[in-house]
């Protein structure tokens, strides 16, 4: 202990309450400056093409994507570089993530980016690939998700998800929440038919069907495409 008393020694490092208050203030500045404008500043100019919320089956598929930790190996963020647009397609726009709770941008590409995977492969390819990745992609290091083919969806569980998403602000109507099982079956059966055409036997409430629904939706909401579609 020095006998020479500095002002900060007396005022700050001797007064714990003041020290804690100042620390709180100092650690708050950066977060406030960076995060608050995300809520207050006008959305980007392309926000007029806000995508439709995920369907109940896609919500179920997304929940499974989260459960299996797909985002630990697959990003959903195409960067505006020549090589990335060549490899994956158009770069990712903020508006495309509008209904993403949680966001699934990922931080590591052990496997390829999936933000533009929708429509890239037939449903049966995904079914095969998820069950046995090496059957479609020899040399792949992805785990085989055999249980997705065996395990069943619970529409009531999916309804709970849709309800909670509605509560945080996703625009699902009361009618849609009531219809969750029917909407799931409708979309699931369409996928099952396409799978059957390719010689794959599946049922609409197989978990893998929901994952396929979600994967086929990914990246199909890009503003560029909609603008072209809307043009006369």
């Amino acid at each position: 202990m020095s006998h020479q008393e500095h002002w900060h020694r007396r005022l700050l490092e001797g007064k714990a309450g003041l020290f804690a208050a100042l620390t709180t203030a100092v650690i708050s500045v950066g977060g406030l400056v960076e995060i608050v404008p995300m809520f207050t500043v006008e959305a980007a100019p392309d926000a007029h093409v806000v995508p439709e919320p995920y369907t109940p089956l896609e919500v179920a598929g997304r929940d499974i994507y989260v459960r299996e930790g797909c985002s630990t190996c697959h990003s959903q963020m195409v960067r505006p570089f020549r090589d990335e647009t060549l490899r994956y397609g158009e770069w990712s726009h903020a508006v495309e993530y509008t209904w993403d709770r949680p966001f699934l941008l990922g931080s590591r590409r052990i496997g390829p980016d999936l933000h533009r995977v929708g429509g890239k492969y037939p449903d049966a390819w995904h079914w095969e690939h998820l069950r046995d990745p090496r059957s479609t992609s020899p040399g792949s290091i992805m785990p085989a998700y055999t249980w997705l083919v065996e395990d069943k969806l619970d529409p009531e569980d999916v309804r709970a998800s849709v309800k909670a998403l509605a509560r945080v602000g996703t625009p699902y109507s009361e009618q849609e929440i009531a219809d969750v099982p029917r909407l799931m079956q409708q979309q699931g059966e369409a996928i099952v038919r396409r799978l059957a055409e390719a010689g794959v036997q599946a049922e609409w409430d197989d978990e893998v069907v929901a994952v396929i629904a979600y994967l086929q939706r990914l990246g199909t909401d890009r503003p560029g495409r909609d603008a072209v579609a809307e043009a006369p």
Partner: protein
Amino acid sequence: MTTATPVEAGPPAYDDDVTRKFVLASVLWAAVGMTVGVIIALQLAWWPANAGVPWLSFGRLRPLHTNAVIFAFACNVIFAGIYYSLPRLLKTPMWSPALSRFHFWGWQAIIVSAAVTLPMGMTQSKEYAELIWPIDVAIAVVFLSLCFNVAKTIARRKVKHLYVAIWFYLSFLITIPVLHVFNNLAIPATLTRSYPVYSGMTDALVQWWYGHNAVGFVLTTPFLGLMYYFLPRAAERPVYSYRLSIIHFWALIFLYIWAGPHHLLYSALPDWAQSLGMVFSIVLLAPSWGGMLNGLLTLKGAWERVRTDPILKFMVVAVSFYGMSTFEGPMMSIRSVNALGHFTSWVVGHVHSGALGWVGMMSFGMLYWLVPRLWNRELYSQKLASTHFWTATIGIVLYTVSMWGAGLTEGLMWRAVDEGGRLRYPAFLDIVQQLEPFYWARVLGGALYLTGALVFAWNLARTILPRASTPDAVPAAAK
């Protein structure tokens, strides 16, 4: 110097029992967390290691590894260090030993519930914030019990001046609840599933504000606090510069918070936020190196002891890795460098040079110093401590170098185009397959580091378990 004398042991008023508990827990979780790390490293080199069962697949085990090493191993080390040093610095026992125990058992219960729920696929998916909402509530309650206990202890302290280490502890205790609460705000759908109140890019920004500062305020500031207490104690030297510690403390905690957006460069986040993240990350180099220099220069006049004393060896390597990774981090935050490195193994290597090098080695140094004093026994083997040091150091180097190699390979192959403007490696799988040797080298590096940690656990067990009193029981008990 590891000879523990009764004079050096704290007066009985200090509650060292809770410190001993946290020490033992940290050693146990180090072994668990690092073992899971080696398993998932193996899964990338050899996919059949996923074993075909859901709860052993990479996507579910990876968050278990990160949570175990950060919140189980590192946090238990921090808590042990705080419960040992804070009362001694303030010459005041902890306000409530009962609350300290609530904190200990509560925290271990949280870890166990994480180890059960994550392999079951119960996750929020946000990195280092994967745990489901009921566990998040428990974390808030248990962590605040520590904050309250520390606040009450400080309020009745017998030493008015707060020592540097305490500033860093306070920044940890204040910032973590703020980060944890705001990043985990969510609406429950079921008991095990919830949806965040933020969506899309806002959710991403809040997450990386949290995620980067989990690195800043769990793996950095509390460990600097530990450095400021245990390094001078081990070296028997005063801290090099008090003034430097003031400047780098305030600069560090102010700047760290801004750096999160460097995780989202070239994403759909607004450009101004990306630029702020990059600029603040680069400036962060200055206060980080302030801490490194203050640590290393504290050893002035004690350098000859670094050659012989394993504790100082661990601490010197820890502080050096702190300097290395806080140089690498700002470089990787530069947009053009990030364009190459982002999404690659380089980032994983960077995290591990900080985690294995700085956090791990600092922890081991502190624990080697602490255990003989807490149990009032001499360390079982200085030679084994030295073996641990070299195994761990070689492990880190192998890990870091293999990830540099893998990262550059990926980054360069992804972006390679030929003269016709076409991708040179259009099949992503071709690039994946180039990484196999690097992945195997990483398995080896991680396994070496784990081996060192197991040698450490054995050494501590032989130190702690009674020898002189019941010599016959030793081999059986130590097994």
